[in-house]
């Protein structure tokens, strides 16, 4: 009761302000791009948009990255901007279902985006409609210490046996093969994603994260058995549950660990910590099951038109601008990430080029990430289970049963 009245009052207040200002051409954008590079990138995009549309007055509200995750729920209902950034895949489903995002098929039709943004179309589509414009993504894979690999005479492993052998060589030399910090859980999700994608393939992985397959399925167990091989061989650093992903960078920088299953955003802090491009390399996660086409993980960031915004036309104009090849080239150059638009060019950076190469040749499908593909509740329980499994592998059956129980409750 209370909430509805408050919402009404807020909506009324905003609509009065908005109608007064609508003639001047307003556009309100909310983003969570508070880190230096994303902030700079958005500043540039907005400046560029303003230069081309001098009659539109853009208001840009910048939110703290973590706080945004809760505030988006409030502002979409009570005081909606015209555009808001978010993530593709299952992560946007609650807002689509609640009718807070608006479909933008017309923007895609008018600007020929079905071709230009084809690679991300799948993850932007829910119920046959397209719910926003993707503007950036980045690859996941294994970042490794090239100098240590060379020192030990290890060639870049391309399959599971080579990978395990490489780990053994590293261990014999006193280097832990893989560093990871699972304090905030999601890093373990990345490892699971890759093991499952390589063991069972993209379709199975998506079915599992959507809740269509039982967690106690033998195929899941096969994935976990592969993971257990690594755990039994002591591939991961000890006490990983005590570290955040940033803290887990330290062993790699100091040469105590040689590999990190991570997203491309790890490159910047590794460079800042003093690793040169000669010391740091990128490789695709090695093949496990030769019958499964290689799928990759590449989370996509997106901008959405809100259902309660007041300046839909201007919003669509901005979306069309953001989708353009030259704009995506520029924003991703600043972000240090990959553009979605097939006409854009990739920044001159070793890791971006490697990622672009890998993703362009991916025929197995592109997953978003465990916590974006699976519904929130499942994601949390799943990643917690993975962390527990990494510490106590013997509890596997209990963990899988727990996840299965949750899946059944959620499917009810």
């Amino acid at each position, binding site marked *: 009761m209370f909430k509805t009245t408050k919402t009404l009052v807020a909506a009324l207040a905003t609509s009065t302000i908005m109608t007064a200002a609508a003639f001047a051409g307003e556009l309100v954008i909310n983003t969570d791009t508070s880190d230096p590079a994303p902030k700079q990138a958005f500043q540039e995009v907005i400046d560029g948009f303003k230069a081309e549309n001098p009659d539109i007055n853009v208001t840009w509200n910048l939110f703290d990255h973590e706080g945004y995750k809760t505030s988006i729920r409030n502002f979409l209902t009570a005081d909606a901007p015209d555009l808001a950034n978010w993530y593709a895949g299952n992560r946007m489903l*609650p807002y689509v279902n609640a009718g*807070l995002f608006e479909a933008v098929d017309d923007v895609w039709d008018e600007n020929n985006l079905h071709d230009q943004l084809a690679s991300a179309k799948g993850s932007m589509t829910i119920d046959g409609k397209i719910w926003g414009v993707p503007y950036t993504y980045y690859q996941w894979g294994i970042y490794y210490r090239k100098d240590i690999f060379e020192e030990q005479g290890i060639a870049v492993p391309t399959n599971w046996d080579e990978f395990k052998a490489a780990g053994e060589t590293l261990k014999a030399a006193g280097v832990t093969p893989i560093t990871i910090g699972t304090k905030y859980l999601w890093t373990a999700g990345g490892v699971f994603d890759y093991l499952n994608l390589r063991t069972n393939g993209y379709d199975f992985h998506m079915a599992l994260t959507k809740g269509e397959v039982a967690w106690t399925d033998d195929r899941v167990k096969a994935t976990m058995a592969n993971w257990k091989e690594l755990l039994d061989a002591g591939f991961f650093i000890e006490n990983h549950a005590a570290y955040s992903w940033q803290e887990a960078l330290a062993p790699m920088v100091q040469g105590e660990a040689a590999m990190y299953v991570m997203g491309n955003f790890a490159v910047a802090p590794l460079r800042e910590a003093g690793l040169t491009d000669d010391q740091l390399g990128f490789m695709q996660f090695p093949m496990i099951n030769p019958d499964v086409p290689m799928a990759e993980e590449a989370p996509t960031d997106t901008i959405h038109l809100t259902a309660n915004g007041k300046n839909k036309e201007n919003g669509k104009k901005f979306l069309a601008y953001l989708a353009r090849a030259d704009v995506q080239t520029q924003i991703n150059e600043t972000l240090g990430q990959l553009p979605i638009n097939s006409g854009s060019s990739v920044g001159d950076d070793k890791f971006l080029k490697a990622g672009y190469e890998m993703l362009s040749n991916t025929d197995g499908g592109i997953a978003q990430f465990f916590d974006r593909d699976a519904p929130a509740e499942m994601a949390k329980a799943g990643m*917690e289970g993975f962390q527990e499994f990494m*510490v106590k592998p013997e509890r596997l059956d209990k963990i899988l049963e727990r996840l299965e129980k949750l899946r059944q409750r959620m499917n009810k």
Partner: protein
Amino acid sequence: MQSYWKRNQQRLAPWIFLAPGIFMFCVYVIFPIFQSVSLSFYEWDGLGEKTYVGAENYIELMDDEDFYTSLKNNVIWLVLYMLAIPAGLFVALFLNQTVRGIRIYKSLFFFPFVISQVVVGLVFSWFYDPSYGLLNIFLGVFGVDPIAVLADERYVTYGIIAAGLWPQTAYCMILYLTGLNAVDPEQIEAARLDNAKGVKMLWYVILPQLKPATFIAVVVTIIGALRSFDLISIMTDGGPYGTSSVLAFYMYEQAFSEYGFRMGYGAAIAVVLFLIMMVYIAFFLFKMYRDERGGH
């Protein structure tokens, strides 16, 4: 009207003065309690429509391992946090002397309570750090292998409680220090004449006079134990795999965190937590009522 006011002025005035407070208390405390209780019978993601599910949230709660882990941790917190009281008393007795610069020592001992819980959490995370932390460097001297306190389900709750005891001890110390100021010197003198000293003096003469301070110390320590949220959030985020969670943190996780937004389920946890606290609050109110009446 005038005469009604005149006649009842004495009776009405307190209520008028209390009115703003009562109003605030109703709006921000009483009303939300009923709101939470009613919300706990619904399933709601905070955005869409609420669906009535009856006691389903509670039934699920009964079968939820994480809930029992949190409940168990809450009990451990409540019991072990009480150590702050004797520790605070000990420090207060130790500092209750007149030497040069005692004020500086007192301030230094009080210091941990002044800094934010978040900072305390960070300091202790570094202290426990398995590779570079002071604790493990110290243990290494005795040839003990490093213990990852915050990554081991066996130690994690105790590790966080130890961090919480640091500022809480300082708080109890300050309460006892002020209490010691009020101790009647004549009674001590009399006790001395009767040949009381040491532990006997403390137990039979000093402690009874510190009863009000002890009472407050118990209250703030229990409240502190139930407020453990910030330390847990900073030091472990409830981990590893939810083993250091307490009810307040679990409720936050279910209702408001990135992966949560199960408002109904969160409300159900809140109701259970409320009922547990009710037992304590009722006891507390009853005791206060009895004391004010002067009975024993």
